[in-house]
């Protein structure tokens, strides 16, 4: 137990400390200007001094991320059910979805900005676009991967389509849905930042951009740090959702 605690906590911590030490030494040894690479203490000072700004901008980016992600879930899940259960719909759209999944959706961001302006709407659209595909593709794949025997068993008992969906297909697809949601939330953060890069007057992406243009590199690094925390927090939210559904999920080793 004690050994596990050491390996689970101390080793990762030691890794972080080592990187920071190398960072400090590099800044000092090569005499790197702050504009190029600020030393960790300057980033830390910027984090503390500008914490209000980071929090308020971070809150905006978090909202964009989560709203867009929820929108992707709300639209993606029912569409996935429709595609998985209807042969014509599946034949029409599934190959298209797979093809579109490999298209870099952020490339559409400039056009979305033209269509929807620089407000929240365009960010939501970009986040939705990047988060939607992993959710719908993984959910549809999960629903279609329901073991044939379980479906036959349900049919042999004259189960209704609703019973089959709720008691067999949906629980069988849940691990796939969780996997899709985890990919989607990671992409959602990226989508929100890209949206802010391209046209926005607020959010961490905007702050990062403006800090860089004003050569305030410590603030840019602080924004980067805040963005990482935000990404981890958003991912942890999905993780918490996964743990809430744990009774319906197979154990971790069997899942992948």
């Amino acid at each position, binding site marked *: 137990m004690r050994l596990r605690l050491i390996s689970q906590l101390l080793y990762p911590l030691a890794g972080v400390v080592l990187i920071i030490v190398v960072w400090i030494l590099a800044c000092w040894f090569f005499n790197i200007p702050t504009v190029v690479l600020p030393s960790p203490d300057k980033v830390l000072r910027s984090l503390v001094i500008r914490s209000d700004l980071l929090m308020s901008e971070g809150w905006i980016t978090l909202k964009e991320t989560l709203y867009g992600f929820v929108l992707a879930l709300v639209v993606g899940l029912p569409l996935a059910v429709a595609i998985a259960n209807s042969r014509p719909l599946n034949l029409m759209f599934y190959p298209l979805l797979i093809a579109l999944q490999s298209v870099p959706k952020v490339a559409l961001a400039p056009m979305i900005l033209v269509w929807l302006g620089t407000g929240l709407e365009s960010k939501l659209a970009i986040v939705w676009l990047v988060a939607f595909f992993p959710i719908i593709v993984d959910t549809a794949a999960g629903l279609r991967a329901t073991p044939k*025997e379980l479906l036959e068993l349900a049919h*042999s008992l*004259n*189960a209704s389509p609703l019973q089959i969906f709720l008691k067999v297909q949906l*629980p069988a697809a849940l691990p796939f849905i969780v996997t899709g949601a985890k990919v989607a939330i990671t992409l959602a953060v990226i989508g929100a930042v890209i949206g802010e890069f391209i046209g926005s007057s607020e959010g961490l992406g905007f702050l990062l951009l403006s800090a860089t243009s004003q050569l305030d590199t410590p603030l840019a690094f602080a924004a980067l740090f805040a963005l990482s925390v935000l990404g981890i927090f958003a991912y942890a939210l999905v993780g918490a959702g996964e743990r809430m559904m744990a009774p319906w999920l*197979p154990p971790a080793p*069997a899942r992948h």
Partner: protein
Amino acid sequence: MAFGVIRNVRKVFQVDELGSTALEPVVALDDASFQFDEGDLVALLGPSGCGKTTLLRIVGGLIAKSAGSVAIDGREITRPMGDYGFVFQAPSLMPWRNVLDNVLFPMEILRKNDAAARRHALELLDLVGLTAFLSARPHQLSGGMQQRVALCRALIHRPRLLLMDEPFGALDELTRMDMNDLLLRIRHETRASVLFVTHSISEAVYLSDKVVVFSKRPARVAKEIPVPLAYPRSQKVRFTAAFTNAERIASEALGVIAPAAEEAAAP
């Protein structure tokens, strides 16, 4: 009239039923006819892929036959009747349910998941020796234990007919023998009729009142072999003359060995 009457059943899978790789229709079952009485345990024996599984699914109402008739207890089967039990080759348990809830699944579908159903589930799990594993998840059980859970699930709604598709085919021989004895005990207590698909000659003979031997695809009934052994049976019957004789007749029908008469005639 017999409880189960299977007459001239034929099944041709059309190209669109087979998926995109098939180029022409496949005759899975050419002409199958046999009868069985209520409470009989009938083994359907034949080489792999000979269509016996297809016949089992037709009897269960899961797939439509192309020609012929299947009547169970006077009812022509055209769709699932809801009162048959199914056991598949893989245990096919739901990984998100524990053992007890897996067994109760059919009762939920039939909207009869009450206290009586729960009592019956506990009885069945006791019968197969899994009382200590009620709240275990399937992945925590061995293959044989999982198949015992599947057996309980198939019996929970007191089916009149149990359809078993090579249920013990993936188990090691000793576990399989245990499961065979367990099945005979369960069958004795529940009085259910059983159709049991297998490709093991000795399993077919050991379990059944009657072995129906199928030829290679497209399958036809090659021979019906009554097994003249009284129940309850124990593993000792495997070493009796009647047992080995039935095994020999089945082997001949399958073409594994040449018929005795021909052997005698050969120089």
